[in-house]
């Protein structure tokens, strides 16, 4: 179904036939294969179904591919969709295209990642920086001042990766000023996380915790611990995202805290806002989809909320 639509967007783009998609909403996702993004995409699909509009979903060829995202964006504008929900792979890269669409009267809703350098109808996301500060503060309570920890970063060339790192380090350093933070840099690749954490854990026996910028990193860090023969709880893991596998690992004693973004809500609210804007209704320019602090004591409630069995 998705493939069919993708092909038809391409075909329509080639023909430049115009307003093929009148009455539908365009949704440009950042990834169709990342487990977190699949939850966002599900929320988007459900919102469209509820509102009874057709959702044209397209994704980039690979995560982080700006040029293909710009291409599908321009195709959707040319086809005359009523509104566009977009998760930009590059905050400023998409700005000119977003400006063109807004000038043409097509509402644009940014989902998960904001657009810098262009005004959008609405920005629907968790405030990564604020949530990362909560993550850092909670992580600090799990260890003593002076204990060394590892922080697995996300891509530092993207605002999401920068905000999560800065928020975590700021809050953690405030609470535990004498703790050393060793960083493992990644580009959102769990294998990089695993290898880096393994290298450091192997050379230093004084690491008490591994905090992660996303749950792919959490699972990579868990694999690194298993590779070194460590048991659940020997080193505390702190995650970000609330992904299903990390929550399962929490139930087994590996993960001690996880700040979950309401991923499903992000897609759902984003497309709801896009539909509302296309019907000429007022939409708040900033919709915060909030977060959920998952700890072993709240994991049951979280699982009920997002439907993990």
């Amino acid at each position, binding site marked *: 179904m998705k493939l069919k639509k993708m092909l038809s967007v391409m075909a329509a783009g080639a023909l430049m036939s115009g307003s093929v998609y009148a009455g539908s909403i365009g949704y440009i996702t950042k990834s169709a294969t990342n487990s977190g993004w699949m939850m966002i995409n599900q929320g988007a699909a459900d919102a469209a179904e509820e509102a009874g509009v057709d959702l044209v979903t397209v994704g980039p060829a690979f995560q982080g591919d700006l040029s293909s995202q710009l291409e599908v964006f321009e195709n959707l504008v040319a086809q005359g969709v009523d509104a566009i929900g977009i998760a930009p792979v590059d905050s400023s890269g998409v700005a000119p295209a977003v400006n063109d669409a807004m000038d043409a009267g097509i509402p644009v809703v940014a989902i998960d990642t904001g657009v810098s350098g262009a005004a959008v109808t609405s920005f629907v996301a968790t405030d990564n920086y604020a949530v990362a500060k909560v993550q850092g503060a909670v992580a600090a309570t799990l260890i003593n001042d002076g204990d060394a920890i590892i922080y697995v*970063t996300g891509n530092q060339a993207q605002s999401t990766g920068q905000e999560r790192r800065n928020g975590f380090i700021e809050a953690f350093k405030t609470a535990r000023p004498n703790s050393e933070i060793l960083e493992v*840099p990644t580009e959102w690749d769990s294998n990089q996380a695993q*290898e880096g954490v*393994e290298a450091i854990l192997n050379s230093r*026996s004084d690491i008490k915790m591994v905090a992660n910028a996303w749950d792919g990193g959490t699972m990579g860090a868990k694999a690194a611990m298993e590779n070194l*023969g460590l048991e659940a709880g020997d080193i505390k893991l702190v995650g970000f995202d609330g992904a299903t596998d990390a929550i399962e690992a929490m139930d087994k004693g590996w993960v001690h805290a996880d700040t979950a973004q309401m991923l499903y809500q992000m897609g759902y609210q984003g497309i709801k806002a896009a539909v509302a804007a296309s019907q000429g209704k007022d939409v708040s320019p900033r919709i915060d989809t909030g977060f959920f602090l998952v700890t072993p004591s709240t994991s049951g409630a979280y699982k009920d909320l997002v439907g993990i069995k």
Partner: protein
Amino acid sequence: MTSRSLQNKAVGLAVSYFRKEWSGALLAILILAIAIELVTDGKPFFHPTNLMTILNNSAAIGVVAGGMTLVILTAGIDLSVGSVMGLIAAVTGYFVSYWGFPPWLAIMSGLAMGALVGIIHGTLIAYLGMPAFIVTLAGLSVWRGAAHLSTGARATPELPDTFNLFGRYNPFAELRADYKAGELSGFMETMGAFVNEHWMDFFRTFQMSMIIFIVFFILLAVVVSNMRLGRYIYAIGSNEQGSRQAGINTRLYTLYTYVICSMGAALGAMLFLGRAPYAKSDYGQMWELDAIAAVVIGGTSLFGGRGTIIGTFMGVILLKLINNGLTLAQLETFWQMVVLGLIILVAVGLDIVRQSKSAVKVQRMLGVVALVLALFACLTPGSALISSAISLHEHNSMVVMQAAGLDLAANQTARLLDAPAVAELQAIVSGNWQSFASLLLLVLGAVAVAVTLKRSLALILAAVYVATALLLVSMGMAAVAPLLILGAVVLAGMTTVPYMFERARTLEG
């Protein structure tokens, strides 16, 4: 034995060492390993468990690169290995988790799929005459798509323990557990005690990944150097038409290389699953580039016919060693990218110089190595200095633009700083610029030496390197000193190159 004949022996050994294709990679590994050991505190690098960790984490990409070597030796290329690895990893995990296959059947199916993919590539390339670049570029896309489609791009649950046999399984773990439980007696008890005592400093990382990796390369090296397949591969790579006229079934043997390469990717997938948290279809992205880089760093020519398996082994180790070392040294992310690229350039540069057999070029390359070492030393004061200077400059520009009454966008005003931040950055700049400038002078000196190749200049610069190193230690930047000392050794060694060449020539004559 006189000292003269001892010297002759040493020169002879050096010459035969540099005749080897892999000498550049090994030299780079040694220089880098020493540099990393010296700049990391607590000396974690040359620890057996760390070295074994590097081997463990090299295993999956290493096996992939091993198969790639055969393809490149025939002057072919396989861009699909990363996607094939991802496909096999995802599907194998899927068979186990969702189809209820027993693990061994799933692994066999995965390896068989690898062979099938290789047969498809090989047939298109060898029998239909399609360019390898195009066929495998298509494969890169097709197999990745197939992996996502067949598994819904979803991760599997944790895989059964059988997969650990390809990865994190430690052959000594059971012995240690039995010893701890007190179930051993006699000789086994002594062994158990020994293993237990040296667990943290040796046996902990003695794992299957590493063992399979090394065994695979030994087998592959034996096949390539002693069997008909290997000889034919070199023949096809040097002169395909000639080989065909000599009666070699070049098409069949070309097909074989692609089958081995794809099966290497499949085995790489199993090794990867043995250490990974779950199976997923996005594994192995960009691995084709890492594998090709490892092969080329190991001294194998992209034009075919020249190269070794052992060289690829070294190439893989070099790549993983850089990652491991830069993580332990806690260098800033973006600098890591720059340093990684520079090291690859130097390693391949060493190989090109090695082939040239000219004293002047060898000297020039050593000059460049000294230059790069000084450049790395520059990073310590330089990275903080440069980023502070850039922030200050941005701040000042924004102040000027604001004063000119320009309308600033949000991400422009974000560059404005408050007074304490400005003062802090200025302190960083003023605290670091002298050491940065003096290190930059060393870089310029190395440029002069590499250009003029003057013996006296090289020796003076070597002395200046040492003096700067001592000065910096007294200023509290001890981490930089080892790089400079190493640079001084390289510069001093450079002056002996013409003499060594002379001696080597008389030996041969």
